[in-house]
């Protein structure tokens, strides 16, 4: 049989699967549910009253809902597709047709994936549309009356018109630094004229309020565009070689016979690693830390400096006065000096024109805490400090997110079809559900549960006490048992999309590689192996 003929059979079976799902109204019910619920979300849920907060909420809830519901449908449809045929005995008519059983499995899988694709495109489209609509440029502040007052105060018409024009430009355009600069120049020109005469104080106040309103709206919009409606990439400083320090220290301790007797070497290593990591980017009161950031592109727009620091002691919600100095091309500097709350994510923007020709900028952080008991600030290795720049559009990010979801759904569909080759509908659905949730909890189990797992030894021992050997073996076995489950949590696309981070092509490729090509292929081969040996007219029902 030629490849074209096999392909034709696959498409025929897939199309039949779609007709089956539609006429049995399964897909219809879910589609209506999604189409009604997703657009209603922004009106049902409360955000923090900021534009970016609202957009993040829409993205987060819509995509979690879409991803979860599609996973559930896929799980059910994929197990049911073959089971319905077997239970309804249509397979007795279908199997004697010149169709390879492998073709049948692939056709069933393709049908489910086409349904998924249609629903996914619809739901991603609705979510994207909602984000674009809520994130549309704000209207310029109405200035007709202000313009009249300004002219009465002696400001010439050209300056007023320039102010109005730059403001409109600010909203209509991308609100990039050039437009902001032009607006600021126009504001300065009008303010200078008003300040010449003290009689204009009332008009000046009106003007200042209008400018502040404009700037607030513009800043909110700019912030939203720069943090949510974009796809950014983060670059961070290179962490010092903590591992090397740890090994050096361990060697010293062993040489001096300083290793603790009741602690395992692994525990000592972990503790040292934590201490050195913390010390690497620790800034004492009055101290300064310098970082150099590499591989930044030349572009027109804003760089976002994002950071989070902790303090070595005291209340975690205190604020510390700090100063950031960003130094770049031609030694131009951008300085930010203010109080920042400890253990929170913060960000500020600097013009991208600071980036040098070689793609670098310097960031220096000065701890200005001068209270009665000044504290050191330390930046964690992960998420301590990074520089973000746009590397793609939000649409592109949505597309990548959709592809990741599709890869996951693809694996779930393969898993379901595999289960249906030897399990009945309820047992198959149960099995795939267990795998689905275990896959989501895999990391939590491996990191949290397993580290506190004691069966033979006592858990009431000092930290670092060597494990009972039986527990050690058991943990080892459990680790590899759970490691077999697909790690759904490793490919979270909702958080990066809501934070405006570009979903890396590497993650996309990794996801397809592990979910579809490796695990999927193994399951497909296993399914084919089982199904081609299955007696479809067996008297004994499969269980």
């Amino acid at each position, binding site marked *: *049989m030629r490849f074209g*003929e096999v392909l*034709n*059979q696959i498409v*025929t*079976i897939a199309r*039949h699967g779609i*007709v*089956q799902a539609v*006429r*049995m109204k399964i897909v219809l019910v879910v589609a209506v549910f999604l189409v009604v619920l997703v657009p209603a979300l922004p009106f049902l849920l409360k955000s923090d009253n900021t534009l970016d907060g609202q957009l993040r909420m829409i993205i987060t809830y819509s995509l979690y809902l879409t991803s979860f519901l599609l996973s559930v449908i896929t799980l059910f449809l994929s197990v049911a597709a073959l089971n319905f045929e077997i239970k*309804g*005995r*249509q*397979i*007795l*008519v*279908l*199997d*004697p*047709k*010149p*169709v*390879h059983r492998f073709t049948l499995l692939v056709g069933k899988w393709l049908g489910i994936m086409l349904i998924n694709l249609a629903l996914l495109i619809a739901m991603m489209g609705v979510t994207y549309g909602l984000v674009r609509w809520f994130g549309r440029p704000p209207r310029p502040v109405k200035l007709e009356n202000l313009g009249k007052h300004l002219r009465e105060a002696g400001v010439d018409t050209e300056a007023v018109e320039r102010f109005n024009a730059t403001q409109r430009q600010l909203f209509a355009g991308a609100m990039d630094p050039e437009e902001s600069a032009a607006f600021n120049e126009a504001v300065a020109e009008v303010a200078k004229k008003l300040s010449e005469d003290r009689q204009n104080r009332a008009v000046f106040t009106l003007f200042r309020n209008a400018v502040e309103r404009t700037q607030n709206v513009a800043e909110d919009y700019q912030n939203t565009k720069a943090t949510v409606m974009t796809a950014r990439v983060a670059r961070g400083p290179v962490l010092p070689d903590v591992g090397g320090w740890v090994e050096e220290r361990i060697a010293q301790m062993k040489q001096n016979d300083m290793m603790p007797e009741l602690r395992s070497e692994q525990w000592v290593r972990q503790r040292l690693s934590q201490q050195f990591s913390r010390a690497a980017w620790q800034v004492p009161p009055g101290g300064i830390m310098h970082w150099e950031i590499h591989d930044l592109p030349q572009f027109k727009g804003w760089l976002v400096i994002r950071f989070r620091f902790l303090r070595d002691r005291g209340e975690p919600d205190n604020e510390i006065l700090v100063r950031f100095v960003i130094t770049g091309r031609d030694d131009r500097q951008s300085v930010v000096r203010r109080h920042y709350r400890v253990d929170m994510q913060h960000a500020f923007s600097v013009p991208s024109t600071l980036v040098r020709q070689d793609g670098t900028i310097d960031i220096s952080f000065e701890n200005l805490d001068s209270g009665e008991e000044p504290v050191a600030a330390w930046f964690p290795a992960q998420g301590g400090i990074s520089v973000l720049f746009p590397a793609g559009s939000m649409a592109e990010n949505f597309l990548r997110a959709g592809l990741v979801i599709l890869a996951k759904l693809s694996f779930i569909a393969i898993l379901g079809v595999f289960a249906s080759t030897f399990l009945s509908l309820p047992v198959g659905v149960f099995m795939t559900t267990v795998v689905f949730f275990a896959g989501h909890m895999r990391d939590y189990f491996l990191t949290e549960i397993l580290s506190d797992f004691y069966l033979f030894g006592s858990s009431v021992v000092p930290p670092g006490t060597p494990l009972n050997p039986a527990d050690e073996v058991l943990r080892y076995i459990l680790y590899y048992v759970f490691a077999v489950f697909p790690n759904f949590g490793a490919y979270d696309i909702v958080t990066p999309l809501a934070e405006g981070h570009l979903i890396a092509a590497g993650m996309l490729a990794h996801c397809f590689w592990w979910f579809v090509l490796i695990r999927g292929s193994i399951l497909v081969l296993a399914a084919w192996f089982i199904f081609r040996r299955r*007696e*479809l*007219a*067996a*008297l*004994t029902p499969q*269980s």
Partner: protein
Amino acid sequence: MASERPVVIETAQVGKMFRDFWMRKRVKALDNINLQIFRGEIFGLLGPNGSGKSTLVKILLGLLFPTTGRAAIFGRDPRNVAVKDRIGYMPEESYLYRYLDAEETLNFYGKLFNLPSAERRHRVELLLEMVGLTHQRQRPLVEYSKGMARRIGLAQALINDPDLVFLDEPTTGLDPIGTREIKDLIKELRNRGKTVFLCSHLLADVEDVCDRVAILYGGRVRRIGKIRDLLADRNATQITTPVLKPETVRRALAVIRESEGTHIEATVQPPRNRLEQVFHAVVEEAREARLETAGTTVGTGAAAYFEGLDRGEKADAILEDLLKAPEEKPEPSGGEREEIVVPATPKEPEPDRAVIADLLAPQSPDGREGKEDSGKEEAAESKRDRPLVLPADAGDKDARDAEQVLGDLLRGGSYDKDEDPDKDKTGQG
């Protein structure tokens, strides 16, 4: 004669043991089945419930795998896709997609055979006409009656113009018209060189159309042979003549007694039409009167379907290949035929009268002679009357009635008009 034709189905010591979840032996469904079925043959598989008929069919279709022995179709494994391309299967129930309509159903299966679009549409039209569902083509199958669903089940089995057709209880649920159409179709298939494997409980149907039958009991073939050989009653003689005068009958009986002895028991009775014939006559009248019906219309019949296929052949060169006579059709690609070891054809045993009587008595109590192979001859024979039966030992009620009539005749009496329901039809008094 049959052995000169190519073997289409071959089983060698096929056995099937069903096991439970723990692989314990539960049911021995088939035991040492050796069959050879030839091209152009209508082969009937008979047996009571649980005898293994369906199991054997499912093994031949690749839906079950034999525990022992081997089965081959067209010399290859039944699971081979090239083999399945030449097979049509109508299961004992219409296991079709209830949410599809008739046209969609046939199109779906047609696509699986990779039929070119124009040819597929042509065949779908012809098949819908053949099974009388043209006007119901867009009703979902869930709304179909059982008989209508059987018809569409038959149509799907023929969508690929198969060389070998498996029909499992094909007439179940069908009205007499549908039953006759199926029988006509089976005969037409044979006329076109196709092979038909028929599995049925309706012994009259099997008797009407099959060339050879095998009788299964307890998973083993108990009898196998040609229908006429199996049904021949060598202890009685039947003479068929046009209507005779009573005097002629008396003289004939006198000759028989004179020759065979006075102890011989002879029965003379006028011929009877079969109820099937009467039914078809009534329906034919209604159809000619153009009375309306909400059910299936009468199909165009198998002959019209095959004529339609032939017209399609002329129009379409692809069809020409597909519908060539089987001897011209190449064997499935892939090289040599698979070897299958079949023991020498066992000598056909004498019919086990007890088994046959058990199986056939309720449906055919008359013990007619076997029929000729030709469909036309069969049709003619079905209209033929049975004027004179001379049973060797007439122990049942019919025989006693016959004895009474014979006695009346020999005493010079005549038929009582009121007691003879066939009188008006035969015109005999």
